[in-house]
């Protein structure tokens, strides 16, 4: 299920939140309603942690993670302990020394595969692969090196920036092994990684997101609740295809 939310006057929810299958980090806001939207949807399943990072509220852009771990920039100081204590034990929290310190902008990942900025250090790439348990690829998205800003994907599917060519889309889709669609969020914004946060069963985007955008997101991330016969029909179509 995809939900609309807004952080103060900003529709870029991906800047102020980091969502994975195992936890969710949310920025401290003046009003509680951003946090309560996330809490209402997620609190029954995963811990939702209110925090700041590196002295800023840009929690989604400074950090990156998945169910295996969480990576934080070297500027994190006071919140590190708080985050470590609030997360489940299986999640490894690691601070990285990397020149490109806005990790959420330079790395995009799900639980198995990740895309990283072409200029990231070798060491960082190894730590990312190690801590997050990923197969990592240096790639660009629609000609942009900031892969974390222009792509958002989960284990089920993903959305990439609208300028992506069909060939690039196919290439990325085969690298990531998930279906991808080139789309926009927040009424035409092409920075989908900042406008949208998602995990395998939920997604949050800005209040300005149109119904069309929302339905594209829900369909590619497979968030629509479907009844059993629909699932069987979808499976049947692909099974019979491969037999022929």
């Amino acid at each position: 299920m995809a939900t609309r939310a807004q952080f103060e006057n900003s529709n870029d929810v991906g800047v102020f939140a980091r969502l994975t299958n195992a936890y969710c980090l949310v920025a401290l806001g003046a009003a509680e309603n951003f946090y309560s939207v996330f809490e209402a949807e997620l609190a029954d399943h995963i811990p939702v942690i209110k925090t700041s990072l590196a002295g800023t509220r840009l929690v989604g852009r400074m950090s990156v993670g998945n169910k295996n771990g969480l990576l934080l920039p070297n500027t994190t100081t006071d919140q590190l302990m708080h985050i470590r204590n609030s997360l489940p034990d299986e999640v490894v929290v690691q601070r990285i020394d990397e020149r490109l310190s806005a990790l959420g902008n330079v790395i995009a990942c799900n639980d198995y595969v990740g895309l990283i900025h072409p200029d990231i250090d070798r060491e960082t790439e190894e730590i990312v692969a190690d801590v997050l348990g990923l197969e990592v690829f240096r790639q660009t998205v629609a000609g942009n090196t900031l892969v974390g800003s222009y792509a958002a994907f989960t284990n089920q599917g993903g959305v990439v920036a609208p300028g992506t060519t069909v060939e690039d889309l196919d290439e990325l889709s085969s690298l990531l092994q998930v279906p991808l669609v080139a789309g926009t969020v927040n009424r035409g914004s092409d920075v989908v990684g900042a406008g949208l946060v998602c995990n395998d069963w939920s997604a949050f985007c800005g209040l300005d997101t149109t119904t069309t955008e929302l339905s594209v997101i829900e369909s590619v991330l497979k968030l629509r609740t479907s009844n059993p016969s629909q699932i069987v029909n979808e499976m049947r179509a692909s099974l019979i295809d491969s037999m022929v």
Partner: protein
Amino acid sequence: MPKRKHEPEVVQQVEEEQQEAEEEAEEENGAGQDSESVESGSSSDDMEGPSSAEEESEDDSDGEAFDSVTVDFDFSEPQEDDFLGLKVLLTNYLDGVTYDGSGLVDLVLKHSKLGTVIKCEDDVLGVTTVLPLASVAGTRSLSDLGKFLLARVGPELKDRVQQSLADKAMGLLLSERLINCPPAVAPPLQQALREDLQAHQGKPRMKHLLLLARAFRDSRPAEQPAGKKGGKGSSSSKAELIFTQPEVECCFKHAVWTAEFAARETQEGRNKSCRPVRLILCIPCAALHRIGQDLEALLGSPAE
């Protein structure tokens, strides 16, 4: 976050060069010797299609060669494509208070015949538009604005503000732009505004405009001319008002009534020498012509 590429730096550089050029010109005491020229395409009632203003600067007073930067500004009607850019410009319209910004931008787009957007290669740098209160009265963004104004003005002005917001012959003038936009964009914007208001067919005709603008109060007693224009020459012992947009300064002189209240100071924007304020001005539409003349006199360069 919406892409903001290198444009603002370019504009900043042009502004600095133009300021230096202006200071030079004032020192030499000849406005005609300006080393910069501003041309703007004529604006018709129907602001379809871009018209551009170009600026160039030459060497600074040290004689070192400055890279001259030519910046093209496009003036056009607000369109759906400008939604995100306008939203960013209007994020802080109510001084950090959360309000229905998307609704306000939607209203601007709905009244596109009354507005002009300044763009530089698809990046929205500024907007000047009028929203007739008669047609936008019941909307959420307007009630948010009303609540904000009533909460911030002094008690003696609350009635004035309330009356103005209920006045059907009032228009809300929105004039927002990047703080470092060259002042030369103001005359074409003002002219477009006058022409659009004349062509506006809606009834009732707007007699007054309400403007919520930004300004600064100089917090030290001014011994030398304060303010961006530099040529005021007056030294006063109380804090001077520094305007961020030249047309607001001209409107201030012709306003029927004005109000001022302190704005929120952000950590980054904290400046020991001046404090941000917000001004509310009520301007009669009949004064727009004189405001345009004052503006041209202030900037010292003819618009056409």
